[in-house]
């Protein structure tokens, strides 16, 4: 009896299963829903994202000049040429330096500023920011509203050796050695000066991003920490950072992608790649190879190298965050 019950139950289940998984009638409603919300985005993604990637990868293995329909398959030759090209390797190295420095400095700075305008204020009463914090918030966001190319051109003028504001101020203060000092033309200062410009443009935006994240933390945590006697640094380190970790990771990846490109800033500040190619970045080399030298195959290979570098960077950031326990703590919360 029980056996038959089980058996009938299973046959029942077996009978029911196909019915359950049977597609519901393909009404116009469902079909159009799939088409619009699944089919269309997928098709757009495949055609405009995946396909160009595949195409670029194919072109990177040809000697296509870019101006003819003819091309020969050359395998990995272009990649070999890139490895032997010391100028491209310099550009790659510069991009790596940017990817190391820009996100780190920008995030540290913007995090510090965000902490100050949200919870860094008076240590009496409820946790709050510095006085006039909304004013600081607005002005530090200003640079982000200016297009990157305009930022680059403005700073190129600021750094002008003879008529620039920077040297004007420095010589005015009595630092005679900055008379006609080429900030963007000296191998020692070109890269730091360019990095400064990028950071200047982004600190405000990431500050706002962190402010939003910090505002999402319940104020009770801060009150409790204060009662336990934690100082501002301690609170930032032990309360804020663990709770905005995901935001830091996102910011790090965004900034890293930007730093691995950095084309607009570098092209505006030093179109030629700077002294001894000190600020040359890969996309500048790519543009030159494609349109000036007519080597679209080689340029595509550079593009693929850039894509790989970006993916590697994102993978490293994820891995570091995971290894230092980021994932765990977030779930524990």
């Amino acid at each position, binding site marked *: 009896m029980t056996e038959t019950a089980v058996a009938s139950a299973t046959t029942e289940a077996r009978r029911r299963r196909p019915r359950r998984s049977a597609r519901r009638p393909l009404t116009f409603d469902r079909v159009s829903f799939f088409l619009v919300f699944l089919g269309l985005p997928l*098709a757009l993604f*495949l*055609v405009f994202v*995946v*396909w*160009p990637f*595949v*195409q670029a990868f*194919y072109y990177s293995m040809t*000697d296509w*000049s*870019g*101006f*003819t*329909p*003819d*091309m*020969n*398959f050359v395998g990995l030759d272009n990649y070999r*040429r890139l490895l032997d090209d010391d*100028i491209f390797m310099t550009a790659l190295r510069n991009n790596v330096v940017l990817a190391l420095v820009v996100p780190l400095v920008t995030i540290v700075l913007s995090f510090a500023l965000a902490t100050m305008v949200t919870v860094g204020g008076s240590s009496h009463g409820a946790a709050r920011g510095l006085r006039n914090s909304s004013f600081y918030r607005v002005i530090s966001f200003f640079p982000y509203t200016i297009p990157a190319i305009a930022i680059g051109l403005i700073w*190129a*003028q600021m*750094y*002008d*050796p*003879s*008529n620039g504001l920077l040297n004007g101020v420095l010589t005015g203060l009595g630092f005679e050695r900055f008379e*006609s*000092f*080429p*900030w*963007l*033309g*000296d*191998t020692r200062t*070109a890269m730091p000066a360019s990095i400064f410009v990028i950071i200047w443009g982004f600190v405000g935006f990431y500050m706002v991003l962190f402010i939003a994240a910090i505002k999402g933390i319940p104020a009770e945590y801060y009150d409790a920490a204060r009662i336990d006697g934690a100082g501002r640094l301690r609170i930032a380190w032990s309360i804020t950072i663990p709770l905005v970790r995901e935001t830091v990771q996102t910011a790090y990846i965004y900034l890293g992608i930007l730093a691995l490109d950095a084309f607009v800033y570098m092209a505006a500040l*030093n*179109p*030629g*790649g700077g*002294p*001894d*190619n000190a600020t040359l970045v890969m996309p500048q080399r790519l543009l*030159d190879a494609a*349109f*000036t*030298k*007519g*080597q679209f195959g080689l340029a595509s290979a550079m593009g693929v190298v850039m894509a790989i570098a970006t993916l590697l960077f994102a993978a490293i950031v994820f891995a570091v965050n995971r290894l230092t326990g980021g994932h765990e703590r977030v779930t524990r919360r």
Partner: protein
Amino acid sequence: MNIQQRTVGRRTFMRGALAAAAVAPLGGALVACAGSGSDDDNDNDGGTKSADNPFGMAENANVDAVIFDGGYGTDYVAFAAALMEKNFAGSTVKVSATTEIAQELQPRFVGGDPPDLIDNSGENSIGFATILDQLEDLTEVLDADNLEGTPIRDTLFGGVEAPGTFGDKFAALNYVLTVYAVWYSASLFKENGWEPPTTWDEAIDLGGKAKAKDKYLFLWGKEAATYYQTLAIGSAIKEGGDEVRLALENLEEGCWSLSAVQDVFTAMGEIVSAGYVKPGGAGTQFTAAQAQWSNNQDALLYPSGSWIENEMKDQTKAGFEMTGFPEMVVSSSSAMPYTAMHSAAGEPFVIPSQGKNVPGGKELLRTMLSKEAATNFAKTKLAPTIIKDTVPADGFGSTALVSQSKMLTDAGSDVFTWKFVDFYGTNVDQLVVWNSFLAGNASVSELTSRLQEITDKIREDDSIKKVEVT
């Protein structure tokens, strides 16, 4: 190998790789727009050739011209286009302006639908090595009569075909005559009793005199550091003659170590180490630097092409009297006289063979080369075209234009140019070296070895097509 023949194989490969059959039709469309469509129906023949229509353009045809919109604008082509529309009633000439020649035309070249006439100029021009095979030979245009009935070849300055000739193909007609010289303010020199130097030793002397007046001899801007390379090569070719020119053009081993080149570099090195070059150029935008010369008069001399007057028109001190003189020579025993000129026609006009209306493109060029159109250019742009006798004695009131005419007359047949820098696109790499050198961070021997490295890299790269210069 042709993409079209490859399409199927490649498409199947991609399909397999993607495992997404859905993409194939759309992907096919993309491939089609990236690499096919070269089965062009260029109706090259159609019209009958006649004296008024030497290239046999069809009646009621359309001409599509894409013109670089740089220092000279595009109105001079529009002027010729209007003239041509008058001569060929019923035909239309479309003149489009762009600053991004390579970016805009690249897909049209691939698609087999290039314009009928291109002014391939400016920073984003297409490297000639890339499209040489796809261009018409323009000898036919020079052999034709101009609108006034004179053979065009007889109306040209000497040597104007050289910059557009690659191997044995005359592929580009360079329309504007550019004179490369060293420019100075005649009024400032008169005021101080200075003379423009004819040798490098005199230049070094003049540097000392300038220093006494708190001025520099030279200055430079970061994007234009290679103007000094142009000056150096010009001077070295005058010193050593054709031997130097050919060694550089053909990317020979040790070409930068030839004694003529070294003598010039050494003199320049002396000027740099004596502090006669305004510091900070490596960080200065080039037009800002040029304004320090033409407006502030921080430096006495500036080596440049004759476009400098037009370029700095709004930033030149009143009464500057911009005047040019030929490159300094090393010694009085130079292979070519001091008056020899580095002059090259610029603004290369090319006609792609795949264009829809090749005779129309040629006809538009012929119209531009007419006396009427060329005089219009000289008058409105204050620069001579390759057509002789279009500039009156007063140079339309421009001292620079007068001095250009004078230098060209003095030079007579001693006119030379070179094109390896533009042809192989090495300027970007050479800029870096010259910026270091002018800033005093690289010695003469470093300058030499690094320029040689750039040359060697091109020579040894088999994927770059070389053109032998003789």
